């Protein structure tokens, strides 16, 4: 290194301040300026801090919970603390500067929380994002205020909803919070939270009718409760009514304006809530409109039975109703700690004939003066059955002076007097006690034992055997009827007839015998005589043509007669006769006649043998004598015939007379005769005639047979006599038969009654009885017919007709 070091000129830097300070300093200065600017701007834009007092601060978090206005964030909670004494929660909210002027004294704040109600879910977004405070204020900035009291629940109407705000009043809690108000089933309004009114008699709730439905509410609009459901059973069947499920669960109100043309309601108007639509509808017409006067009456003592709605009567006229009831304990006022009943009397001045406007004042003055004169309120029994009470305003004589303070609280108090309550319950209790004391058990015991005895009696064997006895009795009767004696009566008659028949047969036989003896010999004489007769007859016949002419005239006359009707009658007669002949019995008649003829034939043959015997035994002489007699008879006939022409002449005269006869009458008589015959033939008995004829012929045949066998003509008389006797006896028996029958009938009637009494329990016995009765009836019928026929023609037995 060299020692010479060049002198370095060191120049001392002496520069200006501008040079010394670096331009970099602008950076922190700018940063500072910007920071300060931001800070100032932030401070400048920061709004005022307001305090809201809430009852609780659930979910409200500092620096997170927002204040919203119309769902726009206008502030943030800065602090959540407490008021003095920790009574409430104090939330401090920093609100935006531009909305701060509007947050004035009418601002309302509430915390929006998720709510699940019967009306739906609200505030669902707050479940996740947390609650927020909602504010509501009007659009006019007024004097601000620092401290607000927050609402415990959301107000009824949001700021963006217009509507009519009214107050609903009910006497009990039918008005529940957050219930819908329905109009024809559509929700047009909402009820706010219900609260007890200041006087404590009503439940009141603010309600809103949303626009544009607010013009549906007039001053005469009636609200009623639709909560729950009503069940009615009528002629149309059972009905269950409810308005909507929400109303069913949470309750709801409906309203309607039954009267048109009323003034629209105004904000704040109070409406009564009625229990049902019917009551509401009736109230329109029953309750006079206009202001009501509320009075208060304090009753003491036992006043159960008074209810809201009970009548308030003045001189028997209903002037209002009880609108509120509550207990009252006021030792300072009454001097003891007893509970008294404070009733609110809702008096309608219109009922007193006072005008709507100013009526309440007038009524109050009226009551003031009346109370001074002794008007008192008392409780009287309104309904004996229910024990309901009503309030009666009466004038009491010599009442202690009282006054009505028009400024009384809650309402002017009406003095009271002793109540007049009929103790229906006690009376009813006494009556019930007496009824209770009646020996009903003993009575029932006696009745039971009586019925038991009756049952035993009815069930006794004696009584049970009665139908059997009756049946046996009937059996006896049947046995009597069916006994051989009675049954043999026709048989005996038959045998009598048989005897008769036989006798007749014998007579015929004798006659035949007589007829045949010497017949040929006497025949010639007879023929001779007959020849003479014929001659005489020939002479007689000479007058015949004239007779024929007469007859012809008669026939002509007869031709003019009303033969048609006669023929009709005859035709009817012929029909009857034909029917008669056509009957079975009539048909059997020829057979009978045939057999009778057979019998007669036999009788004749026997007579012939008898006559031959007679002939052989000198009978011929007598026969000759007989023929002689016949010849004489012929002679006498001849002589008789001599008078024939005179006879013809007489006949002629007769015919002439007959021509003059009133044949009309005759025909009419014949006609009536035919009618009679017709009726006769139409009778059942006539129809039975062939039958009886049949029987008679039968009998006759038997009689002939017996006569044939016995051959004793003499016996015939005795036989006839005995037959007559028998017939008489039968007639007597038959006479007594009707009596027997009537007795049997009476017996049957009695038996029938008995059977009816005994009833169905004796069913088998009844069947037997019926069978027996049928048998008896049949037997009685048979006997009856027999008796009738015998009675009618007792001699038919003999005559065979």
């Amino acid at each position, binding site marked *: 290194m060299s020692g010479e070091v060049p002198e370095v000129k060191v120049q001392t830097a002496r520069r200006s301040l501008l040079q010394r300070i670096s331009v970099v300093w602008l950076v922190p200065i700018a*940063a500072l300026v910007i920071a300060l600017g931001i800070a100032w701007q932030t401070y400048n834009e920061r709004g005022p801090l307001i305090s809201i007092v809430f009852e609780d601060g659930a979910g409200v978090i500092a620096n997170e919970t927002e204040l919203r206005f119309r769902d726009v964030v206008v502030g943030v909670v800065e602090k959540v603390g407490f008021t003095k004494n920790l009574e409430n929660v104090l939330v401090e909210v920093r609100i935006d500067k531009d909305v701060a002027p509007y947050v004035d004294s009418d601002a309302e704040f509430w915390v929006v929380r998720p709510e699940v109600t019967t009306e739906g879910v609200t505030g669902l977004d707050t479940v996740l994002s947390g609650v927020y405070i909602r504010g509501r204020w009007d659009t006019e900035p007024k004097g601000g205020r620092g401290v607000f009291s927050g609402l415990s629940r959301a107000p009824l109407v949001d700021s963006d909803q217009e509507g009519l705000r009214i107050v609903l009043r009910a006497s009990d809690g039918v008005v529940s919070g957050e219930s819908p108000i329905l109009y024809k089933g559509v929700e047009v309004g909402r009820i706010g939270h219900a609260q007890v009114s200041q006087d404590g008699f009503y439940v009141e709730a603010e309600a809103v009718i949303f626009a544009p439905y607010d013009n549906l509410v007039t001053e005469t609009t009636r609200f009623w409760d639709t909560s729950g459901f009503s069940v009615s059973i009528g002629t149309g069947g059972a009905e269950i009514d409810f308005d909507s499920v929400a109303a069913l669960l949470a309750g709801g109100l409906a309203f309607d304006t039954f009267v048109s043309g009323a003034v629209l309601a105004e904000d704040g108007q109070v409406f009564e809530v009625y229990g049902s639509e019917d009551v509401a509808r009736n109230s329109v017409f029953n309750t006079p409109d206009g202001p009501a006067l509320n009075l208060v009456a304090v009753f003491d003592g036992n006043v159960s039975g008074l209810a809201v709605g009970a009548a308030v009567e003045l001189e028997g006229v209903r002037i209002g109703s009880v609108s509120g009831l509550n207990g009252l304990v006021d030792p300072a006022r009454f001097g003891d700690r007893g509970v008294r009943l404070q009733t609110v009397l809702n008096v309608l001045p219109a009922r007193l004939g006072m005008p709507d406007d100013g009526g309440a004042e007038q009524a109050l003055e009226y009551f003031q003066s009346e109370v001074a004169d002794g008007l008192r309120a008392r409780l009287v029994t309104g309904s004996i059955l229910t024990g309901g009470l009503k309030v009666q305003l009466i004038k009491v004589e010599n009442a202690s002076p009282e006054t009505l303070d028009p400024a009384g609280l809650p309402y002017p108090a009406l003095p009271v007097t002793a109540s007049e309550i009929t103790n229906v319950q006690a009376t009813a209790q006494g009556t019930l006690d007496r009824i209770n004391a009646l020996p009903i058990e003993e009575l029932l015991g006696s009745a039971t034992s009586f019925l038991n005895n009756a049952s035993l009696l009815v069930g006794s064997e004696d009584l049970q055997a009665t139908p059997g006895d009756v049946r046996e009795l009937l059996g006896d009767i049947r046995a009597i009827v069916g006994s051989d004696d009675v049954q043999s009566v026709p048989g005996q008659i038959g045998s009598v007839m048989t005897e008769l028949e036989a006798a007749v047969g014998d007579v015929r036989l004798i006659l035949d015998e007589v007829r045949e003896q010497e017949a040929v010999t006497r025949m010639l004489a007879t023929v001779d005589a007959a020849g003479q007769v014929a001659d005489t007859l020939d002479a007689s016949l000479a007058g015949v043509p004239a007779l024929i002419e007469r007859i012809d005239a008669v026939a002509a006359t007869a031709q003019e007669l009303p033969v048609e009707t006669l023929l009709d009658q005859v035709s009817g007669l012929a029909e009857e006769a034909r029917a008669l002949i056509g009957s079975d019995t009539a048909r059997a008649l020829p057979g009978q006649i045939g057999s009778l003829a057979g019998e007669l034939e036999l009788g004749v043959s026997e007579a012939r043998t008898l006559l031959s015997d007679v002939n052989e035994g000198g009978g011929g002489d007598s026969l000759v004598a007989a023929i002689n007699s016949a010849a004489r008879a012929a002679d006498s006939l001849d002589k008789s015939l001599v008078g024939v022409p005179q006879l013809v002449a007489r006949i002629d005269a007769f015919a002439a007379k007959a021509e003059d006869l009133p044949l009309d009458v005759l025909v009419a008589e014949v006609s009536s005769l035919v009618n009679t015959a017709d009726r006769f033939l139409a009778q059942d008995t006539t129809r039975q005639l062939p039958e009886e004829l049949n029987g008679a012929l039968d009998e006759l045949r038997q009689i002939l047979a017996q006569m044939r066998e016995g051959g004793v003509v003499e016996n015939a008389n005795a036989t006839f006599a005995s037959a007559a006797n028998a017939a008489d006896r039968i007639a007597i028996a038959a006479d007594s038969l009707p009596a027997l029958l009537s007795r049997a009938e009476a017996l049957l009637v009695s038996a029938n009654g008995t059977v009816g009494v005994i009833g169905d329990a004796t069913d088998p016995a009844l069947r037997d009885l019926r069978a027996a009765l049928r048998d008896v009836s049949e037997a009685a019928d048979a006997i009856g017919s027999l008796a009738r026929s015998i009675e009618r023609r007792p001699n038919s037995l003999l005559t065979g007709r």
Partner: protein
Amino acid sequence: MTAAAPLISAREAGLVACTRCTRVWPMGTDRCGRCNARLVSRDPGSLSRVWAWLAAGLLFYIPANLYPMLKTRMLFTVSEDTIVGGAVGLAQHGAVGIAAIILLASVVIPMAKFFCIGYLALSVRRESRVSQVQRHRMYEIVEYIGRWSMIDVFVVAILTALVQLNVAASIQPGPAALAFALSVIFTMLSAQAFDPRLIWDRDLATGPEAAQGGQGA
């Protein structure tokens, strides 16, 4: 040159060193003959710029810590975390290591840088008990480590880019991220503005004898 030889600066040797290519030139040379860089023996405005950047960095460091670094929105909940708050939250959730790293990178290192740069800038004008060698080493460390402070900003940037799950979750940088990034940048600029040769001039400025004696001792 031996190790025992006293240290002299280039300026004492009448030389000026090129700060770019370290070639020394005789005093008075205007530009480096090798790299054409402008040759200045000492930067006269260095300290002024150091202080200016340092002030800016400090200014931005305040909002970087007060304002949230991250806005995390998960469904309906929005959480905003400052640097320290986030680290504390992580530590409370058990991630102590991560919390330590965040605290180290975002709080300790920037603060240390502020202190170091400030100390170095002050020590140029005043006597320091710390030797020049140590101070120079400190400067080198500060300059080297300064960029790592941006790790927090990187984390925020990466998270913001990755976690954008629409409604479910999203992460957005808070205002502190920008402030912190600026703070780091300004701090780094501050460190760069410092002329480390000033460390060695300290003794000359106060007195060559003392420095000489000191050197000689």
